[in-house]
Structure formats: C-alpha cells, structure tokens
C-alpha cells in the first residue's frame, strides 16, 4: 500500500515538476526560439533537412565574390599571436579575454573546430557575414583551421553575425545558428558582452558535442537551455512538499468523520415544497468604467529591438 502511495506521490510530483520546469525552460514548450523575428529568407523548416543536406560553406561558395583580403591592409590586426578571441572594440578586459580564449582552444583541441569571437568598432559596412568570410580567409587567428564558427560583433551599427565554415556547418545548421543567436543577442542587447561571448563559446561546445554523437541539434532534436540544478532541486522540493502535504492532510482528515449538519433537507417531505410568491423587481442600474492599461508595444529596449536573418551558412542581425 505504501509503495502504491509512494508511486502516486512520485507521479503527481513529477507531473508538477515537469509542468513547472516546462514553464521556466525557454524553448521547451515551443522550440521556435525566434518567434516572429527571423527574416523570411531562410525559414526554420530548412533545418529539417537531413544533416549534411545544407550546402557546406566553403570560402569560395558563400555570398558575393570574396575580395582577397590580403591584397589590401588586413581586416583585423592581431598582435598577440595565436588567438581565438580578437577584441578590437575592447569590450573585454584581459582576464575575460584570456578565459574565453582558453575555452576556445580546448574546444579546438577536442573537436578540431575553431570557435572564434571577433569584435570591431566598424567592420566597414555591407553584410557582416561576407566580412566574416574574408576574415576567416585571412586567418588572423593563426590557427589554420578549415572548420570553424565565428561570432562577430560590430559596435557602431550594432551588427552581429554567426558564420560557419567547412564541416562545422553540420553542427551549426540554420536551426543551431538561430538558436544560439537568439540566446546571445539577449546579452548583447543588454551590453553584457562577456556574458554573450561566454554563452556563445559554451553553446558552441554543446552543439559540437551533440553533433559528434551523430545527432546535431535541429528542429526535430531541439536544444533545451539547461536549468540550474538548484532551481530544479528547489522546484522539486516545493512540488514534493505540496503533494506530500496533500496526502498526509487527507489522511489526517479521514481520522475525523464528524460533520455537523447545516440543514434538514432529509426531513423535508418529498413534494411538499411549493412557491407561493415570486417576483423580481428592477430597481436601478449603475455603470462604472476603468481605463484600459496602456501597452508599450513596439518601443523595444531603446536599441530599436533585435532582428535576425539567415543564409545557408550564416546568421546575422542587429542587437
């Protein structure tokens, strides 16, 4: 009997927990992370294609004809040797930059994919994704990587872009880039640059890990933002406490079956009740009105809101 109660307790509590966590987990119930904010150029359904069906983004195949970056002055100057993080816009302090760089190198060592973060004050206009391709070709990172994913941020026009190269497109398909972009742009909009880059690096590792298992994230296999363990434990505790209180209180209630009666319905002779008077008299009416709450839709966060659009190998937008 107790095991049956424990089973019902567990199932009730699990149901409450799943519902609670589903509410606090963005993208769990509805996995389209960019509701209404993605340009129509490449619909999300594209990600439903079989893995590898997307055209791999080689340096020659993506976007407009690529000018040879080496012909003019280099697009990015890197004076610190091999580095995955080039912060020309100086959005990071030295310690933050070192931490990110170390994380990127570990990923490169593990997966052979360059995860790069680039910031500039002004990338020169045009499409930031084309600029990223040229940067990758110049290889200011001195990593000589063939496969990579790059997050670039230009502060003057508040542009950002995620571009993939070579085999990395398998892990960072359109769904993946838009999902990562959707998370990263929140921190960028708040001007939490380190937070944005840290999220990008960690998410990149997560996406690469999943791709290595043979099931890269896609609309059929969506990425779920992980919930901190303390939140899971706290919700589990509260849900369990509520369900347990319900069970034990019902046991306690069953210990007392005394209930005082309020009426005497059982002693009313059947069919003896009949109405002798019935009238409804209208007296007056009152009308009250309350102002409707004003909605602040369309004002965004003062930066004009964020936007995003995708091509076959890159995703970019404003923050």
């Amino acid at each position, binding site marked *: 009997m107790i095991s049956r109660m424990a089973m019902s307790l567990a199932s009730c509590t699990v149901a409450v927990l799943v519902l609670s966590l589903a509410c606090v987990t963005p993208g769990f119930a509805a996995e389209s992370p960019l509701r209404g904010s993605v340009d129509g150029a490449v619909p999300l359904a594209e990600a439903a294609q079989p893995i590898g069906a997307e055209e791999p983004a080689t340096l020659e195949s993506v976007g407009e004809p690529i000018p040879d970056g080496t012909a003019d002055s280099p697009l990015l100057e890197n004076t610190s040797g091999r580095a995955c993080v080039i912060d020309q816009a100086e959005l990071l302090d030295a310690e933050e930059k070192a931490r990110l760089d170390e994380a990127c190198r570990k990923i490169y060592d593990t997966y052979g994919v360059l995860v790069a973060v680039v910031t500039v004050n002004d990338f020169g206009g045009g499409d930031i994704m084309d600029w990223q391709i040229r940067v990758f070709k110049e290889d200011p990172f001195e990593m000589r990587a063939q496969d990579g994913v790059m997050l670039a941020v230009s502060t003057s026009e508040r542009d950002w872009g995620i571009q993939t190269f070579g085999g990395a497109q398998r892990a960072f398909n359109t769904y993946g880039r838009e999902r990562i972009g959707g998370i990263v742009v929140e921190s960028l909009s708040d001007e939490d640059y380190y937070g944005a880059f840290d999220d990008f690096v960690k998410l990149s590792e997560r996406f690469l890990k999943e791709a290595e298992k043979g099931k890269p994230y896609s609309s059929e296999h969506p990425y779920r933002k992980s919930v901190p363990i303390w939140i899971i434990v706290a919700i589990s505790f509260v849900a*369990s406490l509520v369900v347990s209180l319900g069970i034990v209180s019902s046991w306690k209630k069953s210990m007392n079956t005394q209930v005082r009666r309020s009426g*005497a319905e059982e002693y009313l002779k059947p069919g003896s009740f009949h109405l002798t008077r019935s009238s409804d008299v209208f007296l007056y009416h009152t009308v009250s009105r309350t102002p409707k709450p004003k909605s602040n839709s369309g004002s965004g966060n003062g930066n004009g809101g964020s936007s995003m659009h995708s091509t076959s190998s890159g995703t970019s937008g404003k923050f």
Partner: protein
Amino acid sequence: MDFVEYKCPCCGAALKFSSGAQKLKCDSCGNKYDVAALEEWREAEQDTSEPELHWEYQKEAQGAKRTADGKYVCPSCAAEIEVDEDTVSTKCPYCDNVVVIKATASGEFEPDFMIPFQVEAGDARQRLENFCRGKRLLPRDFKNRSYLKNMKGYYVPYWLFDCDARADMSFRATRTRTWSDSEYNYVDTSHYLVHRGGEMEFYHVPVDGSTEMDDKTTESIEPFDYGGIKDFNPAYLAGYETDKYDVDARKAEVRAKERLYNTAEAALRNTVAGYDGLVVKRRQMGARSGKISYALFPVWLFETIYDKKKYQFAINGQTGRMVGELPVDKGAYWKYLCGFTALGTAVCSLIGILLFGGVL
C-alpha cells in the same frame, strides 16, 4: 396625516415624484423608480424581524411522576438499586438483570417514539475495528486500548420537530454586463429586489436532547430511517442503557430553527436564477401545525481518554453509520510528511536534472 419619505435604494437621497415620468426620481444619482417597486423595497427594508417558529409540546401539560428517594427494587432478585435521577434503565449489579425504571420512563419523561436497535454488538465492534484499519496516523498503542471493550448500547434522547413551514425571503440581486471601447472597460450593473415565498413540510427534524452526547456526533450519525420508528415500548430498552433528556424542548428549538431556516433558504435560493450576485436581505419563517415529539434512538457508543483528551465514537444503532474522531500520532504525521517530501525531492530532482539540466 403621516408623511412617508421615500429614499433612493441606490444612493439614499430623498426621492421626488416626477409628474412627467409618473415615477419617483432621485436628483442625486438620476435613477427613476416605479411607485410599486419602491413600495416593495420599503416593505423589505422595514420588515427585518424574524418571527419565532412556534411548536406545541404536548408533554409539558402532563404532571411529573417521579419517586422521591431514587431507589428501586430489582423485580428479579429484590435487591435495592440506587440510580441517579436521569436513569431510565440499568443493569442490576447483583443479578445482572436489566431493570427499566418505570417511574422515570413514564409521564413527563416517557418518549413518544423510539427506534429499536438493529445493529448487533459484534457487528458494531467490527465496524469500529474497520474504521481504525488502514489509518497510518493512528497511534500504535491506541488500537489495543480497552475502549473496544467499553462499548455500550445507548438510547439517546432526541426531540423531533414537525411543522408546516412558511418561508418568505428577499434578496438583493445583481446582473452585470461588460463591454469595452478603445480606452475604457465598462461594467453595467443592474440591481433587482427579488422576493420568494414558499411552503414546505418538515417531518421529525431531530435534535439531541442529551448533554452527555456531543451534538456534532449525534448529527453526524443521521439520518435515521423513520420507516422503522415505533411507539415507545419499555421492552425495547432491555439490555441497553438509557438516559432521560437533560436539554429541554425549548432549548433544543434553537438548533431546530437554525436547521429549518438553512433548509428553507437553500430551497428558495434554488428558485432564483439568472443573476450574477445574490445576497439575502430579509428572511421570515413561520410554522403551522408545529409539534414536538420525544424519542429514543439507538446508538452504539465508545468513549476513551487518550493523551488527556476524550474521544467519542458512535454508530447509528439502526443504519450502522459510524462516526468519530481518532487521535493523530504527530510523530507519524511528520515522519510521513518529511519522508514523502525527501523521496519526492530526490526522484524529481534526478528526473529534472536528466531532462532539464543538460545531462541528456
């Protein structure tokens, strides 16, 4: 000549008769009222008294037939038995014969009706054991206590109230309509005065006439099946304990009225429909053919004291309905609460971490 001042039901301001509209008009809030509606309103406002329900009680006219010394001789062994003045029947301590104390079981205290026991002692004991079975919060040492042996069959004195009742009630009712435009939400509330009157017959509404019995207990074991009711016959008392009433009919009336009012209000309320809000403004109840009867109803009773608190259990001696309050083992309560919470937290955290913690 008396002048009547009509006040606005909405704002309380004085009303004036508008000859053009042929209605009474309020200059303060602008509402207009039919004269007939105002009359009904005024009637409901003024008549707020709740006239008493009156029952006739035949027994009060009869004289007392009690012995003075309170001692009786057992008809079986001729031993002298001492009983207190409330005792109607008892067991002779010498020959174990059940003795009906005829002097008190007649006259003023002779019941009109009774329902004989139909549930056997063994059956009652089994019902109590079943009631305790499966109660995880019941203290372990309580189950084996002597209360099971202290079970007694007991005829509980009840007053039965009969009447043809007339109820008249007024309600303030509201009906609301809402709509919106681009800037405001509107609520239009229409106010009504609703009258309902009805007649109904009540038969043998029981009220416990013993202070020994907890009223909550005696009402919980209701209802009795009046199909089995019989005229009082002392022979049915043999083998059971019986006390005369110590709550007189007039005192018991208070509780009877309360129950009748509640039932009448519920019956009349059920006839009012189509409103969003309903508040009782006035209620009146009167009774014709009111009659009070005195009856003895069978109850199996168990009493025990556990942890300095008295616990009373009762079984309807006719229908077998069991009621009572069992003690709660606080240690077991907290043990189960903490145990379930800990178990639930562990299981749910594990599942939550697997599903949402990024492990899978």
